[in-house]
């Protein structure tokens, strides 16, 4: 019995490692990044589009806008495809096919992001350049590549949300004479709404945090993009592109870029968590 208590205590200490890791990450990123934001002035840092480390100009507005554009673009593409996949797999596909397709979608999640970026740059970018004009390396290219990359995340969470809807709801709707499609739009999607919202938010978090694929297809120009076909630099690519040779203030400014990203992601994740908790709360109340 005593031995069991000791083991329990050891397990508790080990179990705290995830939260300790998170705390360490927060402390170290903020300690490196926040001083430079204060020195440059938050207004200058967040609201200026002038990023020129050699002159000591650190303004990340264009990258924040860039990240926003690319993330929204990816979410639009990701949501349309993921929702279709989730609905088809849970409602319309024969069970055997659905069971076979799920691991295939997981495989899509396993492909390294550099591979997505590479295939994007050698196939998609020339297509955009040829048919739509511009340099090809663009917001559009980045959105499409990211949209495909976040597809497995959104799909698998959306499938969970759809499968959690009680069968009786669907049977009720069918029994009232609705078609299966009417049941999907009027009952299924509404009942699963909060889970689907959480799926989309988490997918957006994935998109905004993705680095290597975006560097390869987005063009990385420092201006605020004026169209879908303009090149763009995101917060993540700014860090990865310049970290290799940065030092002093410049390096701190990259950590400050990281702080910004960290805060945005934390807000997104908290929102997703809150939405899905709301859902489980509702289920308990029933």
């Amino acid at each position, binding site marked *: 019995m005593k*031995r*069991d208590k000791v*083991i*329990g205590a050891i*397990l*508790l200490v*080990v*179990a705290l*490692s*995830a*939260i*300790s890791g*998170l705390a360490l*990450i927060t402390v*170290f*990123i903020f300690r*490196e990044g926040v001083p430079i934001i204060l020195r440059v002035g938050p207004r200058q840092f967040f609201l200026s589009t002038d990023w020129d480390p050699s002159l000591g100009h650190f303004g990340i507005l264009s990258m924040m806008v860039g990240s926003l554009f690319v993330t929204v673009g990816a979410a639009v593409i990701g949501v349309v495809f993921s929702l*279709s*996949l989730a609905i*088809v*797999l849970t409602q319309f*596909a024969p069970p055997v096919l659905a069971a076979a*397709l799920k*691991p295939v*979608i*997981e495989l899509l999640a*396993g*492909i*390294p*992001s*550099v*591979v*997505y970026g*590479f*295939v994007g740059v050698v*196939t998609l970018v020339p297509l955009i350049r040829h048919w739509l004009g511009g340099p090809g390396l663009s917001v559009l290219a980045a959105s499409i590549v990211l949209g495909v990359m976040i*597809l497995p995340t959104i799909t698998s969470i959306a499938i969970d949300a759809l499968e959690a809807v009680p069968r009786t709801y669907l049977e009720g709707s069918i029994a009232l004479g609705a*078609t*299966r*499609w009417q049941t999907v739009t009027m009952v299924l999607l509404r009942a699963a709404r909060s889970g689907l919202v959480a799926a989309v938010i*988490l997918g957006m*978090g994935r998109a905004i*945090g993705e*680095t290597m694929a975006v*560097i*390869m297809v987005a063009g990385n120009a420092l201006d605020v993009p004026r169209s879908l076909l303009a090149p763009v630099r995101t917060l*993540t690519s700014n*860090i*990865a592109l310049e*970290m*290799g040779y940065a030092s002093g203030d410049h390096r701190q400014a990259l*950590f400050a870029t*990281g702080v910004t*990203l*960290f805060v945005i*992601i*934390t807000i*997104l*994740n908290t929102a997703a*968590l809150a939405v899905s908790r709301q859902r489980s709360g509702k289920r308990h109340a029933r």
Partner: protein
Amino acid sequence: MKVSPVTTQRIAVGFMWMLTGITLAVLVFILAFILVHGLPHVTWTFLTQSPSSMGREGGIFPMILGTFLVAGLAVLLAAPIGVATAVYLSEYTREGRLTLVIRFGADCLSGVPSIIFGLFGFVFFAITLGMGLSVLSGSLTLALMVLPTIIRTSEEAIRAVPTSYREVSLGLGGTRWQTVFYVVLRSALPGISTGIVLSLGRSISETAAVMLTAGSALRLPRSLFDSSRTLALHFYLLSREGISMPNAYATASVLIIAILALNLLAYSLMRRFAVKATR
């Protein structure tokens, strides 16, 4: 004109099937594109030789070893911690404030982007702890990154073990620890291994975090404190800097085959798990 509900259904479902088809086509295209261009260049010498002139010539042996070391060590470090956390959460405590905090930590950690892990690993392991850009810094960083995945999959697997198993073990006079170790963990093993295998895949695929922590040295790592370039980073540098397209495709093919093999392994483990659970 009013379209009948049945026609609407036909159009909508047809459209969604089309999108499903496109998704699958994209997946097949990506895999085929890399393998068709790359596999012809994957030869025995390519796999066993060191690169020369920045990777333009020669093979990728140091990167294979580097990937193996960085990713393998990461999973080796994260697996025991992750499984122990899952055991604690599901077997050793009641739901309460403490489990909420632990879960919140794991949830948040799983949302942190890899480039942030890279920045953290760089400033904490490489600089503050003085490990430099090295295999060890890289694997510690990756271990932290895959930890939430291992915790979640292990906890799911452990919770899927029927309560009756535990009752029998306790009823036979087993202690709590004996029950966990000999009964619960044993039945949950396929599920736990699935999570570990998938984490290994994720470690192998990772680029951004590894770039900032393990560095990009081309030579063979001789100790854990040596810098080492992983396959994913090598592929990135080859293609981005236009050093050698054939070698880039070949490196990507090796990477893809590794990922395919790991996913297949994870899938077969999961199936064994599913078969057991239905019995």
